């Protein structure tokens, strides 16, 4: 008798849990319908699914296609592509270039219009930063910095879009509620690593171009303790040099990924999420431009070092 009552109680409790989870996921900002919101058995699964990528690569059966589970995606190895973050990253880059190109086509040195004003604001902001930080002579640095800042800013900005909105839109369009879709490109370490490796390649290129291969290697090998302490110099300089792209990539990825995860956790809270969501979004308003600015400034600083003789 007592056992039966206990079992009934446990059943009731688990039913209540399930109900709470259902309302929680349903109350995600998108207003998902009941059936779709109920697809996640636990909060962990909800977050896990939102952290998965739409991965295209070689499936275990030998065909090329999209991975259906995260294990499948992981098994694809290096030769697979995160179609979601890659596509959104490219779309945002094209959007940035489109807006700026349309302004630069009909740019006037007279009284500027609204959009030109905004574009000029950004250009002058980047230009002043480059002028104060970069002391070499290279006309490529400033447009590079502008591209980095605007592009990363736009990618970060997607973090403010409600976490379920874009995945749900894609799932509805594809008529597959299980499809993975990650909307914020900078929460993908591949994207941030792609950016930082590009910067690293530029550092290598300009170091060799300005100082010559010997000068560049000499800087690594003969400083700071002179040529007789060559191994010690290498031990000190090489990690510092290689840390540049790693820290660039992981700083941006870490900040945005953490922000995204917290948005996902807040989205589990049901109707109470609004009270946490708004403060976190406001805090994130600081993180988004700050990380874009940091990435740009560090790029300028590193490239300045590449142009300086020591």
């Amino acid at each position: 008798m007592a056992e039966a009552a206990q079992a009934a109680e446990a059943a009731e409790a688990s039913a209540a849990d399930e109900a709470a989870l259902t309302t929680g996921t349903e109350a995600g900002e998108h207003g998902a319908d009941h059936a779709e919101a109920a697809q996640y058995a636990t909060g962990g699964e909800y977050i896990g699914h939102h952290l998965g990528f739409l991965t295209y690569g070689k499936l275990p059966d030998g065909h090329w296609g999209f991975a259906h589970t995260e294990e499948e995606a992981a098994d694809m190895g290096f030769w697979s592509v995160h179609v979601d973050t890659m596509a959104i990253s490219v779309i945002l880059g094209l959007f940035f270039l489109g807006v700026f190109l349309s302004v630069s086509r009909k740019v006037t040195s007279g009284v500027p219009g609204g959009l030109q004003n905004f574009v000029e604001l950004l250009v002058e902001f980047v230009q002043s930063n480059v002028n104060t930080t970069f002391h070499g002579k290279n006309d490529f640095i400033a447009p590079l910095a502008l591209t980095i800042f605007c592009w990363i800013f736009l990618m970060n900005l997607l973090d403010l879009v409600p976490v379920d909105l874009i995945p749900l839109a894609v799932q509805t369009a594809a008529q597959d509620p299980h499809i993975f879709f990650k909307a914020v490109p900078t929460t993908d370490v591949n994207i941030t690593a792609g950016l930082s490796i590009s910067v690293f390649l530029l550092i290598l290129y300009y170091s060799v171009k300005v100082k010559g291969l010997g000068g560049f290697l000499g800087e690594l090998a003969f400083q700071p303790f002179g040529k007789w302490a060559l191994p010690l110099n290498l031990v000190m300089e090489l990690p510092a040099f290689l840390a540049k792209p790693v820290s660039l990539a992981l700083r941006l990825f870490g900040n945005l990924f953490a922000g995204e995860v917290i948005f996902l956790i807040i989205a589990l809270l049901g109707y109470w999420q609004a009270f946490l969501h708004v403060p976190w979004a406001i805090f994130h308003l600081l993180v988004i431009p700050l990380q874009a600015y940091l990435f740009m400034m560090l790029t300028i600083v590193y490239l300045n070092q590449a142009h300086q003789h020591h």
Partner: protein
Amino acid sequence: MNLNATIIGQIIAFFLFAWFCSAFVWPPIVKALADRQKKIADGLEAASRAGKDLELAQERATELLRDAKTNAAGIIDQANKRANQIIDEAKEKARDEGQRIKAGAQAEIEQQVSQAREQLRQQVASLAVAGAEKILQSSVDAKAHSDLLNKLAASL
């Protein structure tokens, strides 16, 4: 968090975008900014030049005014001198004229006096004759005594 070929795609996209930005987007905007900066600098320079011109013009104007004032003062001085001169001349002339008139009048008076004296002299003879006739109660030959009488008249 598996690394895959997305990195390569992102690197390609990055270099394409950065190249495109530096080739087509950046130069026109920066050129417009530089042009505007130059325009404004030129405008400011023109304004400061105009200010300097104004200052110079004001200096020149005050100089001209000062010159005009000294000129005017000189002219007034001269005019005063000339006026005094004219007055002096007029006075001189008037004095001369007065003296001339006075001299004329004097001469006329003298003439009239001598005329009257002449007339008197002429009449004295007849008066004396008439007087003597009366005294002598006799007729005296006028012709005989005219020399004597003339002498008497001349002594008057």
